[in-house]
């Protein structure tokens, strides 16, 4: 899933300061799972904004809604009227949804309520961890199913570097596992550690963001 965290309240309050009719718009998919921008988080933020306004004696309308996804056009239909009536929409989706909301409603002032982080997994409730960088050419088959691009802080395809100690990464030994230790352990477990003797060629980074904004066209799927 795409993970995110909510922006600090002060930053959100500053973004919304000029507007008197605000819609806090949640997204029911990835950011609901990572507890950043789903219906519950929308409710908490909207209530906090209303309580703050009341404390300051400010008259402002703070509406709330959550749709299934903000990265697909059809799900916006149910909130069209609310969006068009709002002075500003605070999107509680990832950067994809927040941008796409502005594309679907080009006249709407859409502002981000979240900071998008990474493609990750849920390790346990309340803990999410990065797994994929979206490089466009998956190489994990050569590394026992562990991605060196993402799990190694330096994205080394011919690792490890000299900064690995006790299975931890020098970037932050307290919290970051050495990606190459993970690769070695997994490949050893699978009985394929000898494949690490192969020197990996230069990777073509142009298939990811380094090649510009990505686009997929499936002629067979188009209507």
């Amino acid at each position, binding site marked *: 899933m795409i993970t995110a965290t909510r922006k600090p*309240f*002060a930053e959100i309050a500053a973004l919304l300061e000029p507007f008197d009719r605000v819609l806090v718009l949640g997204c029911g998919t990835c950011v609901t799972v990572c507890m950043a921008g789903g219906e*519950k988080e929308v409710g*908490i933020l909207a209530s*906090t904004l*209303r309580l*703050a306004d009341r*404390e300051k004696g400010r008259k402002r309308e703070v509406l709330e809604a959550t749709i299934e996804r903000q990265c697909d056009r059809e799900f916006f239909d149910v909130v069209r009227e609310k969006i068009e009536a709002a002075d500003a929409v605070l999107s509680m989706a990832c950067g994809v949804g927040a941008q796409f909301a502005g594309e679907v409603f080009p006249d709407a002032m859409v502002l981000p309520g979240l900071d998008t982080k990474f493609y990750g997994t849920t390790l346990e409730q309340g803990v999410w961890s990065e797994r994929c960088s979206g490089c466009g050419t998956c190489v994990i088959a050569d590394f026992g199913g562990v991605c060196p691009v993402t799990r190694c802080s330096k994205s080394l395809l011919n690792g490890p570097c000299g900064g690995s100690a006790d299975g931890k990464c020098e970037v932050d030994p307290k919290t970051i596992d050495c990606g190459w230790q993970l690769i070695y352990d997994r490949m050893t477990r699978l009985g394929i550690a000898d494949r690490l003797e192969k020197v990996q060629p230069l990777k073509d980074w142009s298939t990811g963001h380094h090649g510009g904004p990505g686009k997929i066209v499936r002629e067979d799927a188009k209507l």
Partner: protein
Amino acid sequence: MSARVAPARITALLCENSAWKAYLDVAGAPELAGIDVVRLPCSGKTETGLVLRMLEAGSRGVLVVGCPKENCEYVRGSDRADRRVASARAALAEAGVRADRVRMEFVSSVESHRLLAVARDFAASLDKEATT
């Protein structure tokens, strides 16, 4: 419902395994006259957003009372409630609203006297807030 008009009342969310049982023994006590009681199957059912909405809806304060942590009926319910109350208090602080309008307490089923004391103290703290 006429008793629920101004002055604003306190909302108490009581765990049915502990505080609710304590409440049943003293339900008519004057300390509880200004309190709307909500029975929860577990204090861990408390939601941050719900607490904030209660304040929005006009509650003077929200008091969440669960089992003592070391004796929680559902093991982690009281701890969960405690963290959600902390989350609600943090949101109130961000909003510039006094965080002590929400409070977490732990009372066992036989501590009716403590429940009354907690209610009395919470109401007094809110009164103090209102006059300062």
